[in-house]
């Protein structure tokens, strides 16, 4: 066990799997020069054939990952930022998500597409995307969105070993978080299993990616109001651990979904809809979504920052549904 950052966890997971399995290789734009610290020492250790800088052509190299996977390789694609997945939607949706199905199981596509959600730092609308919900609507893609170094490492390693395509969304606001992470080279976190990050009895806060630390802070703050919040991190968005969420909501009777992405058709919406469909009998209050509203993200910092879920908004939502007094709101 060592205390490492989220970025170091990515680095370790990749290094261990590259060392373990010669069919694993990496490609992406400018990965050799190790801009963010996730490929430290890789060229020296694994060589330029396995650590490949690509042309700026996301559809081309992400599709090529699909082709390489079909012939037995296990590519890890570093797509840099999630905003750069749009140019590759063709290959992700029509080839990677569907080839196994449309050819009746003849194809196998073990590959990982990593991308960072790089929001909150004045990168403006074209660089601030958090688009996992789009991909959740497309069958055939597993999706992980870890919120701490331990989950990051265990899930990424599991993703690299998984025989299905996995999209890995890495929340830039979590990059510098540190945690104890096992050194065991076979430390894996199973894809599809959520985690209770904090136990509680009055309200369940289901939080995604960068929403998790915010939710944990809110839970702490709610202690002062004598509100006991349980915080659940699904960690994997597809398949979603609906059972864990429902179990918790059946216990608390209340739910808040915290999601740094846009509101409409979000993962938060999906979780809310699942709860009302399957745990209605247990529900004692509306399910509240605390997300980024459906506006784009502006460059100017002081109008950008308040758009993301905040501790205050979560605390208010919790107070409201638990029946505690809430600060007055203007509409």
């Amino acid at each position, binding site marked *: 066990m060592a205390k490492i950052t989220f970025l170091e966890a990515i680095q370790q997971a990749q290094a261990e799997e590259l060392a373990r399995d010669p*069919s694993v*290789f990496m490609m992406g734009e400018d990965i050799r020069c190790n801009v963010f610290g996730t490929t430290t020492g890789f060229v020296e250790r694994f060589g330029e*054939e*396995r650590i*490949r800088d*690509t*042309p700026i*052509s996301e*559809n*081309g*190299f*992400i*599709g*090529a*990952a*699909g*082709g*390489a*996977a*079909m*012939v*037995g*390789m296990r*590519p890890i694609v570093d797509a840099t930022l999630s905003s750069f997945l749009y*140019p590759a939607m*063709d*290959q992700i949706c*029509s*080839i990677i998500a569907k*080839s*196994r*199905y*449309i*050819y*009746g*199981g*003849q*194809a*196998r596509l073990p590959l990982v597409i990593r991308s960072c959600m790089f929001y909150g730092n004045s990168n403006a609308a074209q660089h601030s995307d958090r688009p996992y919900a789009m991909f959740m609507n497309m*069958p*055939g893609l*597993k999706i992980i969105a870890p919120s701490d170094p331990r989950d990051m490492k265990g899930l990424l390693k599991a993703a690299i070993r998984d*025989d*299905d395509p996995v999209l890995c969304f890495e929340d830039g606001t979590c990059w510098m978080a540190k945690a104890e992470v096992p050194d065991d080279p076979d430390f894996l976190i199973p894809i599809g299993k959520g985690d209770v990050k904090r136990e509680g009895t009055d309200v369940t806060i289901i939080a995604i990616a960068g929403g998790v630390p915010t939710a944990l802070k809110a839970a702490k703050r709610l202690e002062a109001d004598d509100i006991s919040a349980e915080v659940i991190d699904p960690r994997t968005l597809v398949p979603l651990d609906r059972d864990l969420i429902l179990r918790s909501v059946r216990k608390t009777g209340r739910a808040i979904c915290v999601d740094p992405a846009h509101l409409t058709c979000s993962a938060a919406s999906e979780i809310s809809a699942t709860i009302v469909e399957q745990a209605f009998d247990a529900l004692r209050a509306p399910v509240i979504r605390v997300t980024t509203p459906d506006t784009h993200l502006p460059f100017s910092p002081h109008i950008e920052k308040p758009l993301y879920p905040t501790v205050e908004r979560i605390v208010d939502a919790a107070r409201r549904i638990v029946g505690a007094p809430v600060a007055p709101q203007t509409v």
Partner: protein
Amino acid sequence: MHDAQSSIGDNDRRLEKYRRMQRIRQFETKAEAIHAAGEIPGALHTYAGMEASGVGACMALRPDDYMVGTHRSHGHPIAKGAMLRPLMAELLGKSTGICRGKGGSMHLSDFSVGSLGETSIVGSGGPVAAGAALGAKLQGLDRVALCFFGDGASSEGAIHEGMNLAAVWKLPAIFVCENNRFGMSTPTSDAVAGEHVADRAHGYGIPGVIVDGQDVDAVEQAVREAVDRARAGKGPTLIETKTYRYADHAVNMGRDLTPRGPEHDEWVGRDPIRLYRARLIEEGVGDDALSAIDEAVRQEVADALQYARDSAYPDFEEAFDHVFVDRLPIPADVRAHA
């Protein structure tokens, strides 16, 4: 008929080319008839007129080489040596189909003969082929990956990106543009800038070759040179086969939307199978031998159809297979009414 191509002797090789073209033609003639009779659901895009392009190209490949195709998906796998039964069963949506009834006419991909998808999203095969070539290179195998795409597809970014990637990484890939003069109702010249698609090669610093797509030997020769180059680590080649499709974009859709010009008759006059048959006879191959092939293929197609008809449709559960490696759970309300 799906032996290792490389072990075929010279005479056999010629007969095999003839046989594969016949298999495509007869398979599709039958398919078209039963499609008209309502036995095949969905659209049917035939390859008639283009057989020399697919067969010539695939005969230059080894069985373990890879190939990626298009929505016009019947010709490529047969050219690469696929058996007809699972293909015909697929057209009928049967569980014995090559895609277990999931793909249908636009997706007759047979992975056992190296086909890595006949993808119906125009242009989308480009990156896949580059990736398969990359995989072979990383594995230290001397396999190549061949990508068939249409003239219309050449306008897609995916084809550009696939070619640039293959060229800059010197991947063992061959890009074969089957220029049949139209993308649906659009003449190539209305959609594709430049005189020849092969001219694009210059921009990637790779060879660009134009070949008569009605001459199976010429196509084979051009692709063979590209394959040799690819196996030698010298990178990809772009080959344009000038060819022609006889039928409408998709058959049995009502009116033919293809705005054919006066050159239509000339193209039909240069039928690749008839041309090749004449050449073989000129070269001394007996008419009998060829007619025997025709007949054997007729039987093979009839057998395939019988097989397809005798096969069962997939069970409803199978709709939930192959989304992932593990079968998906079936929602109770869906199952209740399936």
